[in-house]
């Protein structure tokens, strides 16, 4: 091979340069894997296993929404002996009481901006203007 002295170091530099984002992220602490807060109330059971919730919670919420609003499926769900009404405010947030420490951790990490909270009230927001009687 001609110009071995130039080509091989050149290739090495090129590969390092192209893979820069990968190894930079591997060694940096800029974006640690999110750690959403477990329910402060100590609940251990969710409406579905954690792995499934991680993948499908948005689908489940849409199914609940359509069921409740259109198909009259307002039945309560029983999890760990406690009953919940279907809904973000009425089921999810009963255990995961902090949007900031739960929802936001992963949503920020993956840079998604769901618009749930434009209308739905976080427990914190609801407490700001509480019923006074």
């Amino acid at each position, binding site marked *: 091979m001609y110009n071995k002295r130039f080509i091989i170091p050149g290739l090495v530099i090129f590969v390092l340069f192209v893979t820069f984002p990968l190894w930079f992220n591997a060694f940096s602490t800029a974006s640690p894997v999110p750690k959403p807060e477990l329910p402060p109330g100590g609940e251990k059971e969710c409406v579905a296993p954690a792995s499934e919730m991680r993948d499908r919670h948005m689908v489940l919420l849409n199914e609940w929404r359509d069921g409740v609003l259109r198909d*009259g499926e307002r039945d309560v769900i029983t999890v760990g002996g406690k009953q919940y009404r279907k809904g973000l405010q009425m089921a999810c947030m009963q255990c995961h009481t902090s949007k900031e420490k739960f929802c936001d951790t992963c949503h920020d990490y993956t840079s998604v901006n769901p618009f749930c909270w434009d209308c739905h009230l976080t427990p914190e927001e609801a407490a700001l203007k*509480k019923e*006074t009687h």
Partner: protein
Amino acid sequence: MDKQRRKFLKVAGATALAGISAPAVVKLTSSPAIASSGHDAATGHEAPGDAHKAAPHGAEEAPKGVRLGLVVDMRKFYGKPELLDKAIAACNKVHNVPQIDNKKSEIKWVWKAPFENVFPEHSSSHSSKIRKENDFLVMCNHCDEPPCVRVCPTQATYRLPNGIVAMDFHRCIGCRFCMMGCPYGARSFNWENPRPYIKEYNPDFPSRMRGVVEKCNFCGERIALGKEPACLEAVKESGAIVFGDLNDPGSEICEVLDKENTIQRKPSLGTKPSVFYIV
């Protein structure tokens, strides 16, 4: 060659003429049949006499399923504006309805208005003092033939099997077609973020966001829990509002409707309101 072209043009011309005049011919020859089919086109070929027998003036088809309705007994509200306010405040509270003091931006689920605005078809030139001096309770009529539902391009507003005309705020794109369609002004548009105008939150219900339409939902979420509409509950002891199934002859609301003279808003429009008034 030339001969063929002439022939083709003749045939094409005759065909075009026949095509253009066909609808007119069909219309002229079949006008009695069209007149007889009346409201329900599906009934098809009925003689004019039959149609009248099947649907006497003011009667409805055999009711099926549940159709929720509401009677406002205005006699109980006359002279008691505070009772009206109580019903309105109860609704505003359970549904996180913002209080915006501005005619353009205000949000109304249930409100009060003078007789001639509520019942323009029933107004007369010399109305009684009671009519002049009192406001009337108004809300979405949960029409049986809701024009708002017909015009909504996203099906964000729809009629439930129990007769409630409901909304899915998630789907509303804020086009406001429904506000044009509703002949009762029952819908309000969120021109701005409503949250700063909500006095106290009901944590069981969402708020709305800027750019969606909202209206009375007949307390669908409370009925699902076996509760009564919030406005009714607030004035319960007066018995001024009755709620129930219009299709169940044994229900309280049907007893009231059987006994009392009731009117609906703008009946000539054919929207078939489910809200009735005793005035």
